């Protein structure tokens, strides 16, 4: 794998994961369990859309085949999407939404924190901006995990079930493939071993405070999102998200 190919791939992973999680979060617009949470979720989603745009713009320049950020986002199909499987999982109840956000936020925070020192200036700049936002996201989601885990019998049961349900998608966050290794060697991506240690370290620390059990590190994991093999959910997300620009390709304002 050439470094250039790995870079394109890596940028799309960052962009797609932000975008798809943001799309999932916006499904809660108008129906979050509390108005404060609704505002929080919409703001987190907005941060992620903004970050996705920054990544897409850079990806478009690197891919350099005439497609711009919008085309990369709205005119690729599921097989070309490179997002983590975790972020395409349905919202379900609020415990699942929260657990998904927490697992993602820990990964996002440590990834961005490392990308701030990437020897690619553009990536470092986008990450320096994004990591400030991700810090708030992680603070919020970890506090909710603790509140639910150490809360009532029902909230504890639900967030534990959410942890158990989503655990099988977390391996992909910290299991490096060729792209991740190439990016690390190029001085851009995070050290895969360190990312894994950091991720498990923080997840276990917060889980302990929340009186929750986490799964085994070597549990069987679903993989594939980073290389375009998705769960059945992604197609439905894209169908909704991409409908307008596909139906009205010449539309410039909506």
């Amino acid at each position, binding site marked *: 794998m050439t470094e250039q190919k790995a870079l394109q791939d890596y940028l799309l992973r960052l962009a797609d994961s932000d975008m798809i999680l943001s799309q999932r979060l916006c499904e809660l617009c108008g129906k979050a369990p509390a108005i404060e949470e609704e505002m929080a979720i919409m703001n987190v989603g907005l941060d992620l859309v*903004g970050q996705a745009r920054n990544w897409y713009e850079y990806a478009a320049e690197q891919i350099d085949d005439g497609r711009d950020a919008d085309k990369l986002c709205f005119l690729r199909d599921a097989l070309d999407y490179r997002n983590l499987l975790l972020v395409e999982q349905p919202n379900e109840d609020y415990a699942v939404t929260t657990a998904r956000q927490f697992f993602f936020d820990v990964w996002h925070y440590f990834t961005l924190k490392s990308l701030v020192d990437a020897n690619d200036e553009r990536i470092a700049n986008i990450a320096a901006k994004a990591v400030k936002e991700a810090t708030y996201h992680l603070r919020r989601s970890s506090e909710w995990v603790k509140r639910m885990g150490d809360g009532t019998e029902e909230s504890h049961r639900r967030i534990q079930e959410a942890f158990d349900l989503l655990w099988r998608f977390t391996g992909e966050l910290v299991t490096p493939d060729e792209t991740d290794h190439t990016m690390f060697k190029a001085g851009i991506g995070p050290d895969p071993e360190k990312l894994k240690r950091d991720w498990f370290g923080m997840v276990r620390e917060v889980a302990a405070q929340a009186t929750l059990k986490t799964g085994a590190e070597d549990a069987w994991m679903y993989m594939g999102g980073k290389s375009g093999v998705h769960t059945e959910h992604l197609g439905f997300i894209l169908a909704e998200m991409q409908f307008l620009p596909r139906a009205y390709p010449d539309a410039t304002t909506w």
Partner: protein
Amino acid sequence: MNERGPSSVDLLIASDRAPAKAHPELLTEDAIWALLDNVKDPEVPAVSVIELGIIRALSWDGNHLSVDVTPTYSGCPATELIEELIVEALRAFGIRDSHINRVLTPAWSTDWITDEGREKLRAYGIAPPQGNASKMSLLGTVEVITCPFCDSKHTERISEFGSTACKALYRCRDCLEPFDYFKCI
């Protein structure tokens, strides 16, 4: 110096707008900073883009003015509108040839909000950022935020996010008013 005749647009379209001043090159940089101090943040109209610290630099290249602007948050929906408002304010002042440079680095920090801006935020009912962004802790202590209405320190956070991404939602336990807190980043 430069001969700046009317642009082709002016020749073709009658306009009821005030005619542009003819000599933008005579404007000093100080005058432009002062001018931009009238452009308000559309989401927090109490403060100007200067007080918010998002205008990073001005530079002239002949008659062409570049304005470096940094967004507060990656996804801030007001970014485009703010950029349009700046260009509009410059045009109204006679600077027809300007463009906005969106810069991401160094990333915007609430430390750049001016003292005047902080006071205006407080008067507007938004608690200004407290402490220093570089010392923000991830999972540690919760800062003590002063109520912008009654100055009580007896406040509690309701949500990490308020009406916009840049604010958190608090409540004063003395005067019982809810209020926005401009977060430190």
